[in-house]
């Protein structure tokens, strides 16, 4: 089937950092949980190895002219692991369940983000969940009505929140329904074992409609909190995949060529200025913001500090974003020497030099990698501009609270795309966005982003937003992420080109050694 000799033992074992939050598709909220759910359940559409939309339970969809009504045709052969047919009613049940205040899923916001009719009112408790704009026209036709046109709506149906849920099983077992033995799922795998904080195992679902084309028999996720232990256990042959700790990629690539891999991810890493009233007056001067952004030598950060194939960032949206090429900014084309010269000049214009140094503090959440980057940045600023920076690290929740309350001067930020479209990043700088922790306000940016929601092709809007960011510099983009793994060379078909890293075990295989 794959043209390669397959291994007898088709077991894929990988490391996860932390115990998954849940395997309930409407409830799960963490990445490792979503990976498991993506194997256990199948939504309307799937992604292929490159992140393109391919049929899942739905064979296809149609939409009306203004993209407000989508109709999905479901394949009649799709089955639950107990043999029941997967119907449009299962999707209606699941989507209402996701929005239902009684379930209180943290991912209610996703249903709202999908702009499904009445979603906001249901979440606010003003309307009953059965008023959600979803309908089963018959057993195999599922219709969704949106409150606003959304051109990328079908992409959102690959998200775990939208996967179907087995009503009968949930009603029979209540909160216990996700336990192995109780759980019924419609994906390529079923959950057969769960030892919390240790491992979970999923095995082939014989009822899955495409079971004949599935190769991997068993997938084991091992919880290993410490990444260095995980690496040791990988090297001892206990794992097929683990993350590479920051800075170790070059050594591992030399020692284990073909196993250390790196590929672009849909995430950015940046520092945000506090531009609100509580922020320092000096950051309201664009020359200061630009000078600081210019003096960061991103080449050193990606090549010497991270050293895992990350790429230098001069735009906010990652270069890997689908359907959008960020504009080449002036800063991107300069040499670092030119940037440094310009930085010194701008800062001098703003009234600061080594004799009268600029002082501020920057915060990041506790992590070895973040610390290295913050130290490197503060050293660059000190050497080039004489800037005196006080570094502050904070435990994660304290950091979020501090940043969210605008109780900072310069703070670390990072974002991974919820879907592969530039707005998932650029919306962060919308003045109405709850995630705009630096409180950057630009009426033009708001206007462009609002217009982009309904535009047939929004790339011109996104380009202009990136140009405004480059000119106003409310954030300092540092780098765009890379997925950096140790991956056993006998694992076939890992989707390195899927920048969201939505992987499906059913598409993997193990090659005979």
């Amino acid at each position: 089937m794959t043209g390669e000799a397959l291994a007898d033992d088709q077991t894929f074992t990988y490391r996860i950092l932390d115990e998954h939050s849940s395997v309930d598709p409407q409830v799960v909220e963490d990445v490792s949980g979503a990976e498991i759910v993506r194997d256990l359940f199948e939504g309307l559409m799937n992604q292929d190895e490159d992140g393109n939309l391919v049929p899942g339970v739905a064979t296809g969809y149609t939409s009306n002219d203004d993209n407000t009504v989508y109709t999905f045709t479901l394949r009649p052969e799709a089955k639950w692991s107990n043999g029941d047919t997967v119907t449009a009613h299962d999707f209606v049940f699941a989507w209402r369940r996701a929005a239902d205040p009684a379930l209180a899923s943290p991912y209610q916001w996703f249903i709202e983000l999908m702009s499904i009719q009445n979603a906001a009112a249901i979440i606010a408790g003003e309307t009953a969940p059965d008023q959600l704009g979803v309908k089963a026209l018959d057993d195999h036709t599922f219709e969704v009505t949106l409150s606003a046109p959304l051109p990328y709506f079908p992409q959102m149906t690959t998200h775990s929140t939208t996967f179907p849920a087995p009503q009968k099983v949930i009603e029979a077992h209540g909160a216990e329904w996700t336990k192995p033995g109780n759980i019924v799922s419609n994906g390529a795998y079923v959950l057969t074992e769960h030892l919390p904080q240790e491992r979970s195992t999923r095995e082939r679902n014989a009822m899955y409609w495409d079971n004949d084309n599935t190769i991997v028999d068993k997938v084991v996720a091992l919880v290993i909190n410490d990444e260095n232990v995980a690496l040791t256990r990988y090297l001892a042959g206990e794992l097929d995949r683990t993350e590479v700790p920051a800075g170790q990629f070059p050594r591992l690539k030399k020692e284990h060529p073909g196993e250390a891999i790196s590929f672009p991810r849909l995430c950015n890493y940046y520092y945000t200025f506090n531009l609100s009233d509580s922020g320092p007056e000096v950051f309201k001067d664009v020359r200061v913001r630009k000078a600081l952004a210019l003096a960061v030598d991103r080449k050193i950060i990606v090549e010497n500090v991270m050293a895992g194939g990350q790429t230098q960032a001069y735009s906010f949206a990652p270069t890997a974003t689908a359907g959008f090429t960020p504009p080449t900014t002036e800063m991107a084309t300069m040499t670092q020497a030119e940037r440094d010269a310009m930085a010194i000049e701008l800062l001098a214009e703003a009234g600061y030099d080594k004799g009268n140094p600029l002082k501020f503090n920057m915060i990041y959440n506790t992590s070895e990698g973040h610390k290295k980057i913050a130290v490197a940045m503060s050293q660059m600023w000190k050497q080039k501009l004489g800037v005196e920076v006080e570094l502050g690290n904070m435990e994660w929740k304290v950091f979020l609270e501090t940043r969210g309350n605008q109780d900072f001067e310069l703070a670390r930020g990072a974002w991974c795309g919820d879907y592969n479209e530039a707005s998932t990043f650029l919306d962060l700088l919308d003045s109405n966005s709850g995630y705009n922790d630096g409180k950057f306000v630009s009426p033009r940016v708001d206007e462009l982003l609002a217009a982009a929601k309904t535009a047939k092709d929004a790339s011109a809007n996104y380009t202009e937003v990136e140009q405004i960011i480059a000119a106003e510099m409310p954030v300092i983009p540092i780098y765009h992420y890379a997925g950096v793994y140790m991956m056993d060379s006998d694992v076939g078909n890992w989707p390195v080109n899927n920048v969201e890293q939505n992987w499906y075990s059913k598409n993997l295989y193990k090659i005979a050694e």
Partner: protein
Amino acid sequence: MLSYTIRRLLVAIPTIFLLVVACFYMMHFAPGGPFTSERPLPPAVMANIEARYGLDQPLWKQLWDYLVNIFVHFDFGPSFKFKDRDVNDIIAQGFPISLTYGFLSFIVASAIGVALGVTAAIKHNSWIDYFAVSLGIAAQALPNFIMGPILILTFTLWLEWLPGGGWNGGQWQYLVMPVIALSTSYMGSISRITRSSMLEVLNSNFIRTAKAKGLSNRAIIWRHALKPTLMPVVSYLGPVFVYVLTGSVFVDIYFSTGGLGQAYVGSALSRDYAVLLGVTILYGALTVVVNLITDLAYAWLDPKIRY
């Protein structure tokens, strides 16, 4: 003895109660909450979640409900982070694991530690003594967070004898490294205390009398010297027992045993209030109980304490 036991038990109850109240308030005053995330939840969603978990109630009411649930229904509530599980589940799964290898570590540390200390004292200033003393010091200088990496590099990566982590229902291969990592430094301390205590006892008058009576060395040590020697050791063993259970946090995380330590640290970081409080109460109650047992053992060994 009975009234002594009862008196001690009566003190234990308010101790645990104070622990619960103090913990509850400290936890809620820590910045951030269980649902603070990088992506701030829309207010309507947050309101639904808070209503579901009762976090919209005033703090005193939350504390009251919590206490009622514990004492009336023996229910420690749901986990805010692990949505498929509740706190009773988490403790029922993790505690037996921590208890198993914690208990084994305790046995290993006290058995080897006492044996080493006694031998060293009897063969005072011989090579056995020097060997035991250096072994004790080396062991004490190797806390579990140093032992962990050394063990895993040696036995997993180089020798490939043992799996680098996991539990697998408690098979022996999975127990070896956690037990060594956890017991080594306590073993060192126990041998040191035993040795010096034994030396002191051997130099005391009643031992000289026993020798003068012509008792054999074996009889002197087993019948007369050991019991007084163990006095300071026993008072140290109580805390050690608590340490091997609660101090297993690092070992749990490092060897991915699935023990309670992972849940404990994880819940503190994620502000999973119910799990954090549940495990704290468990550890607190355990400390109180073990201290009580230590005191009773002490009273048995030394009648002076009882009065």
